[in-house]
């Protein structure tokens, strides 16, 4: 069979078959397409302000390594004038994180970007190795994830950076869309497909942007510039650019819902590679149909605070990693099945006693809400904050990246006809000041548990603001 010729330059031999459109291209053309697609995502969503300080959540894995390399390249090429820094979290997992941090350090040197490492040990007084020694191998993902979310925000605040970009890629987003459909969690589905999420204070800060507002760890924006990029292409980009990354993944298998969704996505990709981006597109479109008052408190009850807080706060549970589901048996699907059955039974018996909101729903809705809370407080956070990837682009050659404006979100909320009464109020943790719907945030609760068993250490949370 004669070799295919690159469809772009028509000169070189094609080496890459692109999953999004079956185009056959050579490596140099691929690199430039990939970069211009990410640039298109960024510019069509106005992701960055000129001169903005941006921290790249860097784990040393392929996604964040590619993200750092692409952003650096684009920043230089297009004169965006961004002030880029690498931000890594050291969970303190010997044999895993110490090696990947070496990769981050090399990247930092190669790209000439400053690197900040924040460690769990410094922030919380506990490394993950110590946590595991204390509580065992099961359920420690909860700790890891809850701690990571705050660690990134605290790290960003220390650097006075108000915007953290992560490497979530199209496969991750598609997986999260399917997972949240299975789990019945529409609010989180809608957040997962939003290219940028911000905390309330960040939203406020952006209104008065020109002020030299101090960045605190409660007003850091998150975005995912690679959310339209295929994982496969990220790997290819890293390969052809000869990027130095660390490819070991966390040792723990994903929890049941995510694992199930991941398998499904991989099978879909085999049948029709375009379907990954089609799922992402579907998710973005569905997000516009999500009744915002329902399911989660982010709607009606947070008027005084900025509305997206819940979203951002909650994101920790979106992550990829853990086996840890709150109920600790490691099977979130089984736990949810049980809960749904109990609720159905209670309804059938007509003796449901739990006092719930009188919403219009069949009981499923109440379940969702409960489940959400549970997940909210204790699901494992994403192990992959660092690891997500990129690759933007939609299914069509002309990319339009849908993004919901704040106005849209707000008006959507207002029109919601039956917003439930406030359930959670986004406030700040009374101990550490982090965003939380509870009096004491999850991290402080977890820390309290840990510290009880180690009385010599007091509750110790880094003071980020």
């Amino acid at each position, binding site marked *: 069979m004669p070799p295919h010729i690159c469809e772009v330059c028509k000169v070189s031999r094609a080496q890459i078959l692109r999953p999004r459109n079956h185009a056959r291209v050579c490596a140099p053309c691929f690199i430039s397409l990939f970069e211009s697609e990410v640039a298109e995502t960024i510019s069509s969503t106005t992701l960055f302000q000129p001169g903005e300080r941006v921290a790249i959540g860097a784990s040393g894995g392929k996604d964040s390594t590619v993200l750092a390399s692409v952003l650096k390249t684009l920043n230089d090429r297009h004169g965006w004038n961004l002030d880029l820094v690498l931000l890594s979290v050291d969970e303190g997992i010997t044999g895993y994180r110490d090696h990947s941090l070496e990769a981050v350090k090399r990247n930092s040197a190669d790209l000439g970007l400053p690197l900040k490492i924040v460690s769990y040990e410094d922030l919380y007084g506990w490394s993950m190795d110590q946590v595991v020694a204390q509580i065992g191998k099961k359920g420690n993902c909860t700790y890891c994830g809850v701690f990571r979310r705050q660690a990134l925000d605290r790290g960003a605040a220390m650097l006075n950076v108000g915007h953290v970009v992560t490497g979530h890629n199209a496969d991750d987003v598609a997986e999260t*869309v*399917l997972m949240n*459909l*299975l*789990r*019945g*969690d*529409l609010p989180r589905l809608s957040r997962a497909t939003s290219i940028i999420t911000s905390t309330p204070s960040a939203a406020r800060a952006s209104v008065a942007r020109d002020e030299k507002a101090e960045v605190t760890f409660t007003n850091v924006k998150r975005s995912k510039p690679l959310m339209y990029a295929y994982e496969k292409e990220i790997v290819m980009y890293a390969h052809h650019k000869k990027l130095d990354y660390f490819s070991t993944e966390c040792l723990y298998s994903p929890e049941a819902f995510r694992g*199930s969704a991941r398998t*499904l996505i991989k*099978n*879909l990709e*085999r*049948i*029709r590679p*375009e*379907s990954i981006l*089609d*799922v992402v*597109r*579907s*998710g*973005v*479109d*569905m997000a*516009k*149909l*999500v*009744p915002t008052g*329902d399911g989660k408190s982010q709607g009606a009850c947070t008027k005084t605070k900025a509305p997206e807080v819940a979203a951002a706060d909650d994101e920790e549970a979106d992550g990829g990693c853990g086996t840890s589901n709150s109920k600790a048996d490691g099977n979130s*699907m*089984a736990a*949810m*099945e049980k809960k*749904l*059955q109990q609720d*159905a*039974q209670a309804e*059938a*018996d*007509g*003796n449901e006693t739990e006092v719930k909101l009188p919403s219009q*729903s*069949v009981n*499923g*809705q109440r*379940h*969702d809400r409960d489940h959400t809370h549970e997940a909210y407080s204790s699901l494992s956070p994403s192990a992959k904050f660092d690891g997500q990837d990129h690759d933007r682009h939609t*299914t*069509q050659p*002309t990319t339009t990246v849908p993004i919901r404006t704040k106005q849209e979100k707000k008006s959507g909320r207002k029109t919601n006809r039956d917003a439930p009464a406030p359930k959670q109020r986004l406030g700040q943790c009374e101990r550490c000041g982090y965003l939380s719907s509870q009096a004491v945030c999850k991290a402080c609760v977890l820390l309290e548990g840990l510290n009880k068993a180690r009385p010599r250490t007091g509750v110790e949370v880094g003071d980020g603001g």
Partner: protein
Amino acid sequence: MPGRRGAAPTDFSLCRRCQSNDPTITVRTEPLCDACFCKYVATKVVKRMETFRVRHSEPGYERTLLLPLSFGAGSTTLLHLLSEHLKGQVEKTRRTGFKLHLLHIADGSRSTASPTVEALLEKVKQRYPEHSYSISHLSDALALEDVRTLLGNDSKDDESHSLEGSDSDKFERLIASVGSATSRADVFQLLKLKLIVHFAKSKDCEAILWGDSTTKLAERTLAETAKGRGFALPWTVADGESPHGMQLYYPMRELLSKEIASFASIVDPPLDELILRNEARVAVSTRNTTIDDLMKQYFESVERDYPSIVANVVRTTGKLQAASLSEIEKQCELCEMPLDGQAPERSRLCYGCIRALPQAAG
């Protein structure tokens, strides 16, 4: 029994509901006997037929509802249940809230009609002679005006063929031109739907009753998501008005596929001989697997271990809020879903349909 507070202590070795027979099947968490199980299934369906009760029908005018019969377990069981339901209405009130018209769409064209299907239809007619029956062929969809306009473009190229070719030839050509197994299945589905809706309108039917189970609706939710039609999800599982200009109802929406299969065997005489089994066509190679097949296999396993999660997917999808029908300005010419903002500019098709039929996108 719903609503009953146990006076006597429950005997866990007996059917949870009647407490007199041995249980034969476990539904969700309850062990039930055959009789109570059948009652459970019938109740779930009849409850969804509220709109069409006798008291809601005008005397002297009988509504006709179309039931598309694929000879699958779902539609056949629905036919059975509604037949029983109508008998009950007659006994109680001497009239019925509606009458049924059944329509089978045979794959392919008239010339390729399968003898199995004809034989099955005869058996069904014998068992339920009180309804009217029709059969139509998928290739008839090509005669529909909007399908002609939609597919008109590409036949310009080879006019000699399109002028002479019969509908079934054209149909074969159209299907052959569709790229992948998934797209072919998608186009089949959409043409079938168009044909059924067209038929329902031509017979002045008030609504179409589908035999889809919860499991089937969950499969469809994820399949449509994967095909890029997430924007249309509220319409794919909703009861009532639809963008097709016809009311659609899913009376079996609270039953799992496995429950329907059990019911079809338990009912006396069993429905099994009226049901066309096509398990055989689980494709081995990825090449011929469709997204629909994949979701079917996936939910078969989810249903086994986590039936409530299946039901929850459908409930969740039902919570998505669609724009009201009156706000729809433009619809996809193939799937008829609202196009607003969901398609490239000036496109006649939505993203999902462009994926399936890129040549018609123009």
